[in-house]
C-alpha cells in the first residue's frame, strides 16, 4: 500500500539548510492538492519560500504544526488517495518516524554533494554539481556580488534528469579573488575553461544579472557550447544600472548600511534575512573581495553606465533564448527587454524585484524546465 502514500518531508533549500520552520499550512487537512501546488510556507535562516507538493493526492495528515521547526527530511504530512485506509496511513507514519529517528532516511532529500574546488588555469573555483542523466546539462551563472547560493531554490528543480552546475565566479564566494580585468568577456573565458575542465561540451545556460552579460559573451565566443540561453534580469541589453546598488554593495561594511542596499534586490523586502546580510558581510571581509568587486564595477559600469552592448549577440544567437524579468526590478530595468525579436520570449513577473529566481522560484523554475526540455 505504501506506494500509494506519498510522504511530504522538510525540503532542503540550498546547501546550508539543515532545518526549517513551517510558518503556515496553505491547505486544510483532507483537501485535494495538485502536484506543484504550494502547500506550505517554509522559513529558513536564509529565506522563506513556498513549498510545492511533490505529487497529487489528498492531504490526509498534517504532522507538522505551524511554527514548528524540523530537520531536513522530517515528515511534515502525508498524501494519499481517499481509498487508502487510515490504518495504512498510521502504519506508514509509524514506520517513517522509526526509520527517520534511526537516521536511515535523514539524507534522502539531502543528497546534495558538497561543493568542490576546481582548478581552472591559475584560479580555483568553487563548484556545486547536482543531478545526473543524459539530457544536456544546465550551467547557472550568478551576477555581481552573488554566489552559487543564489540558485539554492532552482538547482535541484532542474536536476531531475540531468547534470546541473552552479559555481562562484572569480572574486566571489569561495573562488579565487583574482578577477583579471573584471570584464564579462574575461569571466566568459573562465566559464568556458571550467566547462572544458568538467568535460562538458554543451550546456543550457541560465544566467542572472551580470551573469547574463557573461552568458552572452560566452555565446559570442563559444557558440557551440551554448545550447540555449535563459537570461534572468540580464545585464548587456541596455545602458542603465542602479549605481547606488553597485557602489553601496561595495562600500557598506555593516548590517545597518548593507541592508538598505540589499533591499534593492527584491520587491518583498522581508526576504532579505539577517543571515543573508551576514553572509555577504563575511564574504566582503575576505582578503581581496572588495578590490575584486571594485575592479568588476570599474570594468563593467564605468561612468555609471553599462560598458558593453551585447544586444547584437542575443539577436544573432542561433539557439533558443528567453528572458525572465521582475517588473519591479530596481537594479536593471525590464525595459531593456523591449524591442527584441519575437523569437525570444520575455516573461515579466509582477511584484518581483531583481532576483526572480529567489522571489518567484516556482515561476522561474517552471519557465526554465519548459525551456530545457
Amino acid at each position, binding site marked *: 500500500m505504501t506506494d500509494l502514500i506519498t510522504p511530504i518531508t522538510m525540503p532542503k533549500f540550498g546547501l546550508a539548510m539543515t532545518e526549517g520552520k513551517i510558518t503556515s499550512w496553505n491547505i486544510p487537512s483532507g483537501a485535494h492538492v495538485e502536484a506543484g501546488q504550494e502547500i506550505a510556507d517554509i522559513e529558513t535562516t536564509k529565506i522563506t519560500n513556498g513549498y510545492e507538493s511533490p505529487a497529487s493526492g489528498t492531504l490526509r495528515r498534517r504532522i507538522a504544526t505551524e511554527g514548528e521547526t524540523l530537520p531536513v527530511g522530517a515528515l511534515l504530512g502525508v498524501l494519499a488517495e481517499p481509498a487508502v485506509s487510515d490504518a495504512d496511513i498510521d502504519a506508514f507514519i509509524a514506520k517513517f518516524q522509526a526509520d527517520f529517528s534511526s537516521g536511515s532516511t535523514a539524507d534522502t532529500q539531502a543528497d546534495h554533494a558538497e561543493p568542490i574546488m576546481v582548478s581552472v588555469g591559475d584560479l580555483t573555483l568553487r563548484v556545486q554539481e547536482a543531478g545526473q542523466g543524459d539530457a544536456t546539462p544546465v550551467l547557472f551563472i550568478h551576477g555581481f556580488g552573488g554566489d552559487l547560493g543564489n540558485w539554492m531554490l532552482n538547482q535541484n528543480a532542474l536536476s531531475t534528469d540531468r547534470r546541473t552546475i552552479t559555481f562562484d565566479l572569480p572574486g566571489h564566494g*569561495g573562488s579565487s*579573488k583574482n578577477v583579471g580585468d573584471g570584464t564579462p568577456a574575461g569571466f566568459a573565458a573562465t566559464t568556458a575553461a571550467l566547462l572544458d575542465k568538467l568535460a562538458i561540451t554543451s550546456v543550457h545556460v541560465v544566467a542572472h544579472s551580470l551573469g547574463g552579460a557573461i552568458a552572452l559573451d560566452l555565446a559570442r565566443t563559444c557558440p557551440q557550447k551554448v545550447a540555449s540561453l535563459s537570461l534572468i534580469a540580464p545585464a548587456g541589453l541596455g545602458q542603465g544600472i542602479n549605481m547606488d546598488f553597485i557602489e553601496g554593495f561595495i562600500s557598506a*561594511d*555593516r*548590517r545597518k548600511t548593507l541592508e538598505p542596499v540589499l533591499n534593492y534586490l527584491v520587491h518583498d523586502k522581508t526576504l532579505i534575512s*539577517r543571515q543573508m546580510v551576514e553572509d555577504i558581510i*563575511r564574504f566582503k*571581509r*575576505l*582578503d581581496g573581495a572588495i578590490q575584486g568587486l571594485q575592479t568588476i564595477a570599474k570594468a563593467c559600469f564605468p561612468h555609471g553606465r553599462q560598458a558593453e552592448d551585447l544586444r547584437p549577440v542575443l539577436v544573432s544567437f542561433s539557439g533558443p533564448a528567453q528572458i525572465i524579468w521582475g517588473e519591479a526590478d530596481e537594479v536593471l530595468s525590464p525595459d531593456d527587454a523591449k524591442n527584441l525579436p519575437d523569437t525570444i520570449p520575455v516573461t515579466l513577473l509582477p511584484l518581483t524585484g531583481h532576483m526572480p529566481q529567489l522571489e518567484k522560484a516556482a515561476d522561474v523554475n517552471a519557465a526554465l524546465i519548459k525551456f530545457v526540455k
Partner: protein
Amino acid sequence: MSKKSFRQAINEALRQEMQRDPRVILMGEDIAGGQGGSAGIVDAWGGVLGVTKGLYTEFGPERVFDTPISEASYIGAAVGAAATGLRPVAELMFVDFVGSCLDQIMNQAAKFRYMFGGKARTPLVIRAMYGAGFNAAAQHSQALYPLFTHIPGLKVVVPSSPYEAKGLLIEAIRDDDPVIFLENKVMYDDEEEVPDEPYSIPFGEANLTREGDDVTIVAFGRMVNFANEAADRLEKDGISCTVIDPRTTSPLDSATILECVEDTGRLVIVDESSPRCNMATDVAALVAEQAFDALKAPIRQVVPPHTPVPFATVLEKLYLPDAARIESAVRSVMAYKKTKQDA
C-alpha cells in the same frame, strides 16, 4: 570553509599572516616547545595549550622562538622589535603574568606613538589566555581586559568564537598599534564554520548576535555564548533580546550600544572580570549618562563577586556568570515597574 576550533582558527590566522608578511614573528614561553626539555623535542608543545603547534616546523627558529621565563625581558624585546620594523606576536601565556611586564606595555608600547609625535609605530600583538572555569586557581584565571582597556594607546580584543578569533587576530597583526588579544582558555575546543581564506574584522564594530525588542544584553568574550543561550531560552517565553558582542573593549562601539538601548529601553551587562571598574561599570556609566531617558528599568550587571577566582570547583562554578543568571537578570528588568509616578 570547514569547521575549525578556536585553537585552529588562531593557529591559521598566525600561519596565514606569517606567510603573507615576513616581518611577522612569534615569541613566547614554550611556543616552539621542548627546547631544553629532557628529550630535546622540537615543536612538541606549541604553547601550553597547543595553539602555535606546527608553526616552528613551518617557519623555523628565526621566526618562532622560545623565550626565557622572564616576561619583562621578552615582552620588552617584542616592544623594541615592533618599534624597529618587525611585527611581533608575543604570547604571554596566562594574562595574569602581566604583572611582571606591565611597564613594558603600559609605559613603553602604549606611549610611543603619542610621545614621539606620531613618528613611531608599535605594531605589536600580545596574545594571552584569560578567564575562569579551567580550575587553574587565582593566579591563572583572571579576566584582565579592563586593566588594558584603562590604558590609552592600547587596543584590546576579546573574541567570542572561532570565526571572530581568526578575523580579529588578522586585523590585530595588520594594525600598527599595540594590541592585546585575549583568548578564553575554556573556548579552545569550541568549533564553528571558519573560512579557509584570510579575512579581517575591523575593530570598534560591535556584532549583534541576536536582535530583539525587549532587552539589550552586552556581553564580552565567552559570556557572549551564555548570553545567546539565555536569549534563545527567553525567546521561547516571548521575551526577545538583542545581544551585543562589542568584540573590542578598546575601541568600544558605544554608538551601537546606545542605539540598541534606545530601542529596547532595558540593559543587562555580562562581564566575567572582577566587578569594580570593569567593562560592566564602564558600559553602565555610558548608558546612564547618554541614554538615561530611554531606560525603562535599572541597568543590571551579571558579574562575579569581588574576590580572587576560587580554586575549588564548586566555588569556581558559583563565581562565574552563566546563562541561568543572565536569564534571571533579564526577567528581573522585564518585571520592573516604576513605583513612583513620573512628575
